[in-house]
């Protein structure tokens, strides 16, 4: 397989990373080279093999539905780029 320039631009859009046409072309070459390596996987017949999503086949723990963390809003918002009155500021989303 080989990625087209349009596909590179499409995945950059999905990943929310701005990419110039020049960067997209360079990235396309690199990604295609990496996918040549990845394609080696296709040589193996894995029919009937259960996908392994995790290193330990364990069920996730459940816990009581109770608040366990203290409210540290001010400390956590202190590292935000822009806050006002306890709210995160972003460009207007709804006109």
């Amino acid at each position: 397989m080989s990625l087209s320039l349009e596909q590179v631009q499409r995945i950059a859009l999905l990943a929310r990373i701005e990419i110039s046409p020049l960067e997209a072309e360079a990235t396309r070459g690199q990604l295609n080279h990496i996918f040549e390596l990845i394609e080696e996987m296709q040589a193996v017949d894995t029919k009937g093999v259960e996908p392994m999503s995790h290193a330990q086949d364990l069920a996730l723990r459940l816990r009581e539905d109770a608040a366990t963390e203290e409210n540290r809003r001010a400390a956590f918002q202190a590292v935000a780029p822009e806050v006002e009155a306890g709210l995160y500021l972003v460009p207007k989303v709804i006109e």
Partner: protein
Amino acid sequence: MLNSSLKQLSAALAVKKISSVELTGLFLDRIEALNPAINAFITVDREKSLGEARVADARIAAGNAGPLTGIPVAHKDIFCAEGWLTTCGSKMLSNFVSPYDAHVIARFKAAGTVTLGKTNMDEFAMGSSNETSYYGPVKNPWDIGRVPGGSSGGAAACIAARMAPAATGTDTGGSIRQPAALCGLTGLKPTYGVVSRYGMIAFASSLDQGGPMAKSAEDCALLLSAMAGFDARDSTSLERPAEDYSRSLDAPLAGLKIGLPKEFFGEGMDADVRAAVEEALAQYRKLGAVTVEVSLPNSRLSVPAYYVLAPAEASSNLSRFDGVRYGYRAPEYGDLKDMYQKSRAQGFGSEVKRRILIGAYVLSHGYYDAYYLQAQRLRRLIAQDFEAAFQVCDVIMSPTSPSVAFAFGAKSADPVQMYLSDIYTISTNLAGLPGMSLPCGFGAGNMPVGLQLIGNYFDEARMLNVAHQYQQVTDWHLRMPAV
């Protein structure tokens, strides 16, 4: 003091031969002198470190000291530490002063260690040479023209240069073991789930695992005993009784069965690395171990499978960096989408972007089965290969890296070449097994060679024993570079 073991430092502190403030000052002075050339630390804060040392001294004076109280430890900049700049090697977090402690940091605080600083690393732990750090590459103290390995390159270099007696690292595909090998250190990646990932900035969550890096297995055992333990805040943390990882260091090795995967001893390994590893195996036979050939037939596919799974998880994990709640925000932007796109384009480096794009692609509609699910199926085959191998051996040995440390720029232009430098380490992460690297000699250019140990699940104490016994009859781990 600079070349002392943690046990020796602890004894010196206990008898008041030296205070923690003095010991910390000694290492801080060394950092001040050497770090400009090595670049192992991103953040050093003398006052903060000395403050922690004073607390440790008070604890020692009060008779409440543990085995690590007062000992300075450098933390990889992937671990959130309250009040410390925590960058993860990225411009994206260049202004992030963590408001909380990672579980690992909290454990070390409870043990009374002193934070010596935050160490340099490949950006978001994505790299094998430390060349992807936004804060500049770390130099290998054995030869500053060569890489220290990655991603825990700062951790490895600071111990090699004796700027710190011990450090924390993380390992997603070899990021503790490969830099340990390239810098002549001992490092251990525990079984997945043994060390909490809470507060450890996520790269690939099903593979990431924190672990200790130090001069010797004995030191690593002390550090792991402090780091490991159940933490409810990490959903994959394992509920197991606490372990003393030093408990069996002195056990003899007679009868130990060492498995040698034939696929790891074939082509692709440099002759100098092979010679050092063969010599180490001969030493193990002298200690009473026997070697048996084992086979890991699917291991050659660990690199392609990893470069599907790790980027897929990374693309999801790194979506949190959007310039809203923390981290970098582009100075100029239009609407919300433009803000996301510009902040991420400017905040991430090229390797990180590459991996996010690979991940976004393999998870996208129409490609999920062919790439992501196929890689997960291979992951199971790779884990099953190990399961079969451990039927006939106690521990697996191989080189950690196919070559000694390479020169800056040697592989950075070709990502695939860089990825292949982790050929021996990645399968361990995919299977979730514990892995170690320990120094076993020197190769070309007088550069250190690492021997990899892979153990069965939860066999860390046994692996540390196997490494420690070797370090009782060799002195590779005590060699230090002339810096």
